[in-house]
């Protein structure tokens, strides 16, 4: 089943004074449930723009994008926010943990964004956060602030945070970009474990080493080459 289906996607940025930049130029993409996708490409090729669209942070200028069978180009801001909370787990290159919250609170945070029937009480949220931290092997760091952790540990917290809401897929934007090779291997292994449990992973990367056992999509000049 298609989890992401983008057809003839265009994204045009208006730079002012009549200058327009096409970041995506009729890009087509299909991601099936359970896949591990690696998106590669040079700077300015449209990787980040594509990730923003798939992540529901932006909408295409032209073309149709379906996420889990829902057309996102016609979604309201509120619907996009709900979709991000419920269906997508984000992992950033710079970790983006909330510095004033402990590791446990950081992982618990996305569950606060669930609404309606998916809303959870505090006890359940904490239990789930602790379970996810156990999965990434950081149950002994729950009460630490992010500043006290190494880069690799912070990214593992980010993986746990991405997992807590049982997302349909995880979007990882160069998750190993700021890590040494050992920490990098750990994170990639962790993402493969998560993928084997059934969660789809879409990863943007520059590092060929991290793309083993994944389907690689090469993007250049706003279109997918292969």
């Amino acid at each position, binding site marked *: 089943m298609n989890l992401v289906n983008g057809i003839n996607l265009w994204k045009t940025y208006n730079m002012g004074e009549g200058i327009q930049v096409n970041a995506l130029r009729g890009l087509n993409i299909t991601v099936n449930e359970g896949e591990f996708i690696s998106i590669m490409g040079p700077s300015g090729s449209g990787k980040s723009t594509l990730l*923003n669209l798939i*992540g529901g*942070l*932006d909408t295409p200028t032209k073309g149709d994008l379906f996420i889990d069978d829902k057309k996102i180009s016609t979604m309201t*801001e*509120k619907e996009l*926010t*709900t*979709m*991000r*909370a*419920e269906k*997508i787990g*984000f992992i*950033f290159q710079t970790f*983006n943990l*909330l*510095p*004033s*919250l402990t590791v446990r*609170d950081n992982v618990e*945070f*996305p569950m*606060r*964004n*669930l609404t309606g029937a998916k809303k959870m009480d505090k006890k359940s949220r904490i239990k789930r956060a602790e379970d996810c931290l156990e999965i990434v092997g950081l149950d002994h760091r729950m009460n630490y*602030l992010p500043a006290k952790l190494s880069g690799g540990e912070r990214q593992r917290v980010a993986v746990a*945070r991405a997992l807590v809401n049982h997302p349909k897929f995880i979007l990882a934007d160069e998750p190993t970009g700021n890590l040494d090779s050992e920490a990098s291997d750990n994170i990639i292994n962790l993402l493969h474990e998560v993928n084997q449990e059934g969660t789809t992973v879409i990863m943007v990367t520059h590092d060929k080493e991290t793309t083993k056992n994944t389907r690689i999509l090469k993007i250049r000049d706003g279109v997918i080459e292969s």
Partner: protein
Amino acid sequence: MFDIAFKDLTSKKSRTIMVIIGVMTCVLLIGVISFITYEITDAIQVDANNIAGKLVFETNGTGYPPSGSNIPENVSNQVLADSVVNPDKSSAIILAALPHNSTTTTFLMGLNPGSEQAFINSTQVTGTDSLVSQSNNSVILGYQAAKDYNVTVGDTFTVKNEQFKVVGVLAKQGIGTTSLQDESVIAALPFVQNFAQRPGLVTADIITPNNGVSLGNAQNTLQNNYGNNTYVVYTQKDALQSLSSTESGTFIFLDMIIAMVIIVSAILIMVVMMMSVKEKTREIGTMRALGTSRRRILLLIFYESLIISVLGGIIGIILIIPLYDLFIYLAGGGALGYIYSIPLSILLEVAIVVLFIGSFSGLIPAYQAMRISPIEALRYE
């Protein structure tokens, strides 16, 4: 989001403490100024209450207290002898300034012995409240006057080579700044006329109408019979108006200071919260990417400014009394512990101001935070 707002604030302790101190200082200023206004208002009310149900006959245009008034004694006697006047509860008075070392003014108040109730009313007294059968230099002191001369019943004190013998001391009136009675040294009328070198003159008549005569009737009768555009008959309402207009400039000045303090306080929190939003752009972007709604981002910033205001407000309220005590003490108003409780009206005023500052100053930064685009924010370094 309340707990996250709290954690955000505690993670930036120095800045949070500085802003709380800023708000606390503003609250202290507002509280102390409100206290001063409250006390002046209370003292005005007490002064006006002292002539409740009475009339004051005095020179036209002198207001209340009638310190600038001068009436020939024969005119005063005619007024007091009128059929609408109750002679037992009415009296001519003479006011003269009495020097001492304190910053407050003391009045030497001359009354006809036996008619002291016209001025003393129901104020509690230590010693006697009558000058009848007392020596010529006997005086009854108001609360503040006794403090100023540091005397009690049985003591004597000397001013301008004249010795005064204290036969009674009155309790303090109201809770506010001192009233005319608190600041008075009450003596026999002839003694004061002699001391002030104003023979044959009185300052005013304090008049209680006879039984069966209404205040309005007595006022009209006395005004028509003895007024002649030279004298005027004041009621309690007129006195209150006169007292309030005397202090209106002070009230406007104090209100202006309060308004300035509120504006400065609101701007202080607003600027700090705007800086905080700017610093947290990436965090807010992350929250938005993780599915936090705009409404909840707005609440986060709003709560932060509210927490700062409320904490500053609570500490400020707690410190109002000690600071006001110190203020009174430094102004020469007596020992620390002068006033023990904050009136509810001041508490409510400060609470409303704190909530207003907290919510109003948080609105613009919160709106700013709510508008942050997650894409721009995640790119922000």
